[in-house]
Every structure is written in C-alpha cells, then in structure tokens.
C-alpha cells in the first residue's frame, strides 16, 4: 500500500460508503471492501484500470471527472476520495466542492509542489521539477494544476472548507517530526481530510492544526 493510502484508510469508517474519484486499478477499494467492509464505487477512465477493477470485484464507473459529477446525489456517500488526481483536473476547485456535496467528508491527496526538491529544481537548475513522485516533463504531463500545501490551505479557507486533518508524507516514510514542523517544505504528498463545513465567520476559522484529530468532533 502506498504511504498516502495507508493514511487514507485510517480515516475511512468501517462499513461506510466510499466513492473514489480516479480509483486506478481499484487496489485500495478492494482492500477497503475486504478489510473494512465498505461499500465502494470507483470512477476511472483508463480501460486497463477499469478491467482490473472488474476482475477484482470493485464496482467501477467509466466517467471523466472533468465532465462533472452531476449524476451523484448530494450526501449519497460518507467519504469521497480524490487521490493524486487534483493536479490533473480542468477545474480542481469545482471538483473539491462537488466532492463535499456528494460526501459527508472528503479526502484529497496531491503532490506538494512546495516540496524542497521542487523548489531546488527551480532555484538551482532553472528547470521544472521532475522527480520520482512527479515523473513527467512539462510538455507531456497530465498535471496541469500544481499547488503547494500552503496554496491548498488558502483554497480551503476561502472556499469555506473545513480541514478535519492534514498530513504530509514522502514517498518512503510517513511524516517524521521534521515534516510535521515544515510540511510545505519537506512533504512530497499532501493528504487532507475535509468536510464542507457549515457557514462560519472568518474570525472563527482557525488555522488547521497539524494532524488535529480533535477537530473532527467540532
């Protein structure tokens, strides 16, 4: 299991309804079905991935996320996942809002462009970053909307999205103390647990605390 998936699965309640936007080969959903008894549906467009899902008993709908999610009822899922797909969407903000309309909560993971390696690539080499977790060249990348941890925090604040929990990992280890201290600098993959919070005044909006699980009750 990928490090980000290992964290994601902890935030998913046993027996809940899970919608995975861009579910890939369905491995995570198959695991969640087996180990947590979730009722899962995945959306995917790649034919090979779709066939994998069908062969492993994961319900999968061929659907392009860029064409919206209007076929899903509001509140029809407990958790909506968007793993490593945000940066490839035409309209990431609209999709995050749609996620939180359909799901009671949402989990978003994305490659953190604010990671020190990315910064170093730009600073020292003057080149767009290419790395293990962002392996594409600028001209052939499906990733058209990169953002940093700090950018996403701003999006959540401005979009009235409540951050239940936030963490970052690198491609090998889950966050160590240093990553907790400087997530936007050290984290390679950012993981957010969100909910479409009630209307709140800007004043009461607290800066999300790192891995702040107590916020979930609020």
């Amino acid at each position, binding site marked *: 299991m990928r490090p980000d998936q290992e964290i994601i699965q902890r935030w998913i309640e046993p027996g809940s*309804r899970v919608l995975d936007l861009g579910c890939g080969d369905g491995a995570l959903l198959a695991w969640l079905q087996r180990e947590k008894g979730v*009722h899962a*549906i995945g959306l995917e467009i790649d*034919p090979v991935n*779709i*066939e*994998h*899902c*069908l*062969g*492993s*008993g994961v*319900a*999968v*709908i*061929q*659907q392009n996320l860029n064409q919206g999610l209007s*076929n*899903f*009822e509001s509140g*029809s899922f407990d958790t909506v996942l968007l793993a490593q797909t945000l940066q490839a969407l035409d309209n990431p903000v609209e999709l995050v809002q749609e996620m939180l309309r359909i799901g009671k909560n949402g989990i978003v993971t994305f490659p953190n462009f604010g990671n020190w390696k990315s910064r170093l690539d730009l600073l020292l080499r003057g080149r767009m970053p290419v790395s293990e977790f962002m392996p594409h060249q600028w001209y052939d990348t499906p990733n058209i909307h990169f953002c940093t941890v700090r950018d996403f925090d701003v999006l959540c604040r401005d979009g009235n999205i409540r951050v239940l929990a936030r963490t970052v990992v690198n491609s090998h280890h889950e966050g160590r103390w240093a990553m907790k201290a400087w997530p936007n600098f050290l984290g390679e993959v950012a993981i957010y647990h969100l909910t479409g919070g009630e209307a709140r005044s800007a004043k009461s909006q607290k800066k999300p605390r790192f891995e702040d699980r107590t916020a979930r009750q609020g």
Partner: protein
Amino acid sequence: MNDNRLDNSVGLVQPQRFHFDQPLTLRSGKALPGYELMVETYGELNADKSNAVLICHALSGDHHAAGYHSEDDQKPGWWDTCIGPGKAIDTNRFFVVCLNNLGGCGGSTGPVSINPETGKHYGPDFPIITVRDWVNSQVRLMDRLGIGKWAAVAGGSLGGMQVLRWAISYPERLHHAIAIAAAPKLSAQNIAFNEVARQSITSDPDFHDGHYLEHGVYPKQGLMLARMVGHITYLSDSAMRAKFGKAFAALEGQTGNFGRDLRTGSLSFGFNVDFEVESYLHYQGEQFSEKFDANTYLLMTKALDYFDPSVDYGGDLSRAFAESECNFLLISFSTDWRFPPDRSRELVKQLLKADKQVSYLEIEADQGHDAFLLPIPRYVNALSAYLGNAHREICGDAS
C-alpha cells in the same frame, strides 16, 4: 466438422422443449392457458446449482445463442462470440441457459403455434407480451431447472431490458445483472422506427390482418422492409462507410468513399439497385423474411415500445430498483445511436440514486448497436473479467 469452427465452441447443441401447464396471467390482463419454451443449455450445472447464467435474447434472437445445430450449419448461435469454453461467458465454469421468449417464432409458444381453443394458428390473436411477462415465464423455467439464484442474468438491447426487469421483479434471484446496449425505455425516435416497421408489415397485401398463414402466404415485402429499416438503425454511419466503401478504398488507397461502392461499376440511370448498400439491405431483408414470423416481429416491437419499469413508481426509475439486491454491469458502445451511451448513463444515474453497486463501461466501437454481438476485445475482456470475479465469489475457486 472438419474446420476450426469448433475451436472454443460449445459444439453441436440440441434445443429442449419445456411444457408448462400452469396458466400465465399477462400484463395485458389476458392469460396463456399453458405454453412451451424452447431452451438451449451449455456447460454443466454444478452440485449446488450456483453457476447458472441466464441469457436473454433481443428482438430477432432465439434460444440458439451458441454452438451449431448440425454439421452443415454455417453460422453459430447469435452470441457465440461470448459464450463457449474459455470465452467471456465461460461454459467451463458456468451453466448457460438461453430460451426463445414467448411470442417468438423459434419454437416457443407464439403466433405460429396452434391455439388449443380454435385448433388454428394463434396468428394476430396471440396476446401482446411484455418484458415483464417474459421474465415471469423465465422464472418458471428457472424453477423447473431447480436453480434458486442465477449467478448472472445477461442480455443486450431488448435482452438488457429483461435483465433490468429481473433485478426489479425478482431481486433475490440473481447475483449479477448485466445489461448491454440497453435503455431504461424507448425514445420517441425508437418508437417511430418500430412503427415504420409495423406499418410496412401490416400494409403488405399478403398480411391478411395477420391471418396470412391460413391463406398460405406471408407478408414477405413487409417483413423485408421492416428488417431493412431495423438493420439501418443497428449500424453506425461509420460502419456502413467501411462496409460499403471497400472498392474505392482498395482502388484509390484511401480510407473510403462514404460507403458508396457501386454494385456493377456504373450508374444505371434508372430505379434499379445501383449501390452495394442497397443490395446488402435487400439481401438481409430477404433472408430475414424467410425465417422470421411477421406477427412475432409486431409483438417484439410492441414489447420494446411498452418497456418502462418506472411507470409503477410515478416515473421515478430509481424507486423501481429500490429492492434490487444484485450488482449491475452496464455496457454501451460509442457509435450506437439506437440505444446510445447516454441511455446507459441515465440508467447508471438512477441506479446510483437507488444506492446500488453499479459498474459502467463505454466501449469505443465503430459498429453501432450491433457491436454488442461482435468480438470487440475491450468489451469481451471486460465481460470476462467481471464474470471471472463473479464465479470466484459465488462458486469458490474450484471451477
């Protein structure tokens, strides 16, 4: 058989006739006092009878879904591309059942059968049959075979509508519903084409108000026309261009000439058959008219027109599926303009609203509605993967 037709084939098959004494009350309020169903089965039913798959046929299909009836048979059953040992609907694993539906002309009770009350052919007096009536008759066949729950019920087009009806009316009796190139109900355009087909049959002077058998004739021209119209709707524009644009493509090294190949190489400047496509449609129509019953054609088109499971639920299709327990697999084809992908997506939306487990695939294919009968790799492989998993889950790994 000395050729390779038997490779991955169920081989020579023989239909069986099942008789049912219990009257069947129909949706129209009429009843059939008793009836017969022609059935073919492929593969072996396992000990706990958990590996049975029902195949539902479309407008012009019958019980002969796979294999050959005789050594001289040139063509296998209508879904031989998908049914057989090692194929998507794998007869090494599954016990596959296919029947000719009531009102058909493949041997099951229908307009060409003798009405016990009159001693004559039913002809036009055969009651209108709906998809629901078919499924009710299929349940009795299931009971007769001792099958408690289908591993899957599968079908394309009008067959897919039977699949949906199974999921609605008999939720506890199937694990998987596989509806291919189907629709939740016909559109006005679909009904319009059906009405043209019906009018061409009923306006044929040989139709005799449906009593043509008593006159020793049949409405050949009408059936031909009906089939020609139907056939056009089964093909896509691109499929026709490819099929009837070969000569030009070969000559000019180009990809096609809009499918305008000439039959004789020059225009006749008369009202003769000039183009290959005309000749093809005539041939298809003629072939069809010789083996299909006109009254059955009328009945089948009415069953299509009447299908709308939402009518019992105030037009809300999602409520129709409320009780369904099965998992759904829906497949559509990109160039199908008879039941286009949008119609399948409509079904997906309603199934999601009803909180059902649904998978949906949209296959890129040039062949139009007919694609569901063709060996398109992505389609066949997906079906195979889905059913492979279904077999593991329902029957365990031993196959």
